[in-house]
């Protein structure tokens, strides 16, 4: 593929432009509701919950009806996916939510609004209220994500994985049709 061909499909390329032009203009009638949904989804914990619900509603079924593997593997994989989604969504929601709340509490635009412990000097010195607010919003998102990730390095190993194993084993034990519950020669 030559450079011109690559450019034509790239973000600012002609294929993209043609696609963009075909999209109609869309007026948002109820902007309050639209903005509320957007704001909720922008917060890391709500976003994690939404993604978890999507995973819970499709992934176990896709695993169960996987035609490429035998029935026992499909079932065991479904139970593990179910356990993993429940464990990871639950832990992820709590860790992200706690990080976000912590940052919200300690990163404020001024002392009048609350603690400024985690607010950088550049934001505190900014004189334009609009600019200060948008700088603070970006900083809060970055800080809470870094904080959540740091915590999740530990929770992935200490909580997610053991919780997944525990739940998966419970689900598997409850299904008597699975060969896992019988003595298996291939078990390791």
């Amino acid at each position, binding site marked *: 593929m030559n450079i011109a061909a690559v450019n034509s499909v790239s973000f600012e390329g002609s294929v993209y432009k043609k696609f963009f032009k075909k999209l109609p203009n869309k007026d948002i009638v109820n902007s309050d509701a639209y903005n509320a949904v957007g704001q909720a989804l922008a917060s890391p914990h709500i976003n994690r919950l939404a993604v978890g619900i999507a995973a819970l509603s499709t992934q176990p079924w896709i695993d169960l009806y996987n035609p490429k593997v035998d029935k026992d593997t499909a079932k065991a*994989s479904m139970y593990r996916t179910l356990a993993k989604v429940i464990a990871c969504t639950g832990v992820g929601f709590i860790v992200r939510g706690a990080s976000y709340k912590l940052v919200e509490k300690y990163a404020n635009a001024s002392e009048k609004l609350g603690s400024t412990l985690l607010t950088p000097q550049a934001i505190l010195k900014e004189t334009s209220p609009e600019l200060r607010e948008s700088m603070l919003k970006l900083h809060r998102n970055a800080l809470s994500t870094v904080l959540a990730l740091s915590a999740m390095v530990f929770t992935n190993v200490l909580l*997610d994985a053991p919780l997944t194993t525990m739940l998966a084993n419970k689900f598997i034990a409850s299904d008597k049709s699975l060969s896992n519950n019988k003595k298996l020669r291939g078990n390791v």
Partner: protein
Amino acid sequence: MSEFFTKIAKLAAEKIYSTFGKSSGGMLLATSILGLTFSAGAQILGICVNKKYTASQKAFMIPQELGELFVSSMAIFAITKPTQKLAAKLAKTGKIMSKEVVSYLKENNLADKRGHFDFDFEKEVSKIIQQIENSDKFIKSNAIDRVSMLAPHKSALEKHEITSDATSAIATTVASLATVGCVVPVIRNRFAAYYQQQNMDIYHRYRSISSGSFNKI
């Protein structure tokens, strides 16, 4: 002690701001992939030590987890990032706009430009604000009148920014839902089923060697 922690927290906040404060895109990308890697590592460890799974199931589940890590990481570049860019462009050009801001466009004779590829709402409004600020009427008026002259334009800018942020969040979430709900499980399962067979062949060969029946293979 608490003074020490306060100092550390302040330093960390300053460092994170100076690194990611102006653009969180790179940070989100790096943290997403790091998070996925840690998660996959922990899950693989969990599968390896779980005695409830058979060897055949482990041979499927480990590549399934690796497949998920690979497909999810690729999906960030192939689905999430392009969707984010498209959403930003739709908001910037006014393809997606609140009714109040559409009315503002009509009042300021900008409605014809709405939705054009090169239209930039913020730039256009900034130009209008600049023109007002340079006008004789604005220069001669008092502070209260100045604020009221600029108010509708600043309000439109603010409303548009909030809607743009919402559009970006909604579009990114929809892309993530499609990825997690459909793309990742379908591709990772195909990948895992292929490697299950390969892994089981290696497993049976290893068992044969360890039980002294190498020559019978």
